């Protein structure tokens, strides 16, 4: 929570006044919100969605929702926390709509099995991109954005155990693809 509150003042110095004006429907204030949070929202969407087009659509859907719902933002948490949850929900919804790949087995069918996986050395960006969408979403939401497994499960409509197992599988893969030594 404190990290997201710090993000508010870092991204938008006069957040209180901008939000107050945005609630009145002031388009300049709404645009200021967009400008302040455009990059973190897009970044989150892009890390979850399969394509840049999907991520840009999520960016648009998120801010449309922010603009029409700003009156319901209660300032109990951080502004970024509120916007981020809308963005994460929109991105996960898009994954669902696009019939995402959620299992490693299916992923293997899609990308093909590679016997030399253990010798691959990818950079982290490429390895992250190669993960199945759901695993990647869980890694990003848990490890980078700081959501708990319970929160991720709630957003995905799954159980916390599902989230935990996706995270562990993702790390096992990342470790292998990044050429890090594995424990026997």
């Amino acid at each position, binding site marked *: 929570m404190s990290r997201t509150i710090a993000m508010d003042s870092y991204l938008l110095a006069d957040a209180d006044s901008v939000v107050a004006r945005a609630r009145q*429907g002031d*388009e300049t204030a*709404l*645009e200021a919100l*967009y*400008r302040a949070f*455009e*990059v*973190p929202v*897009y*970044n989150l969407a*892009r*890390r979850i969605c399969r394509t*840049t087009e999907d*991520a*840009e659509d999520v*960016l*648009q*859907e998120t*801010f*449309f*929702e922010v*603009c*029409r*719902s700003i*009156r*319901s933002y209660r300032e109990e948490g951080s502004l970024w926390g509120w916007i981020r949850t*809308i963005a994460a*929900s*929109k991105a996960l*919804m898009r994954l669902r709509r696009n019939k995402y790949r959620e299992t490693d087995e299916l992923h293997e069918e899609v990308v093909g099995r590679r016997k030399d996986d253990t010798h691959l050395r990818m950079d*982290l*960006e490429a390895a*992250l991109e190669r993960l199945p969408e759901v695993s990647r979403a869980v*890694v*990003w939401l848990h*490890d*980078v954005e700081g959501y*708990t*497994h319970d929160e991720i499960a709630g957003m995905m409509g799954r159980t916390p155990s599902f989230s*935990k*197992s996706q*995270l*562990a599988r993702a*790390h*096992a893969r*990342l*470790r292998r693809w*990044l050429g*890090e030594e594995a*424990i*026997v």
Partner: protein
Amino acid sequence: MSHLSVETLVALRDPGTEPGEAAAREHLEACPLCRAEFERLHQRVARLKALPALRPSRERWPSVLNQLRAERQRRRFRTGGLAGLAAAASVALALGVSSLRPKDTGLDLAEIQQAMARSQVLESALDRIDPESRVMDGQTAGIAQELEDRIARVDRELEMTELMEQQARDAELLRLWRERVGLLDALVDVHVTHASNVGL
């Protein structure tokens, strides 16, 4: 004890959530290989957090603004239309609905009045729900949008009945007010169901 699995190491970062955590921590303290693996895990996560921010290649604010303005316009039209219809309905009711009185159609005047009254009750219910202030998922928002669009179409048709012949108008009024009630009923249902699903 054998070395810790990736699953266990990943779980150890969220303290107090896993059974057997104490034994796993004990092993971690004593095993340099597992400690090294745990450190690599932390480093990997730190590198993930340090990845450069990705930026959209296209400007999306104009599209957001257009979408917002279109919605406001729809809402204004709907509210304006409703105010006009409500006023017309009040006058008609005050005058005993003389202008709506079915002549040779066999229609029951009370049916039109009932539909109008029901419509007003549903409008009030909708105002109390205040759907504009709630965050909806895409599917719910889509359904609500579709219903609002259809209500707006019915409102336009209701206004057009002024141009119709008396006899045809009475029948059309009854049909449209009933349709309006049905759509409003569905819209209230959508919002009530959504509110109960999200625990509001």
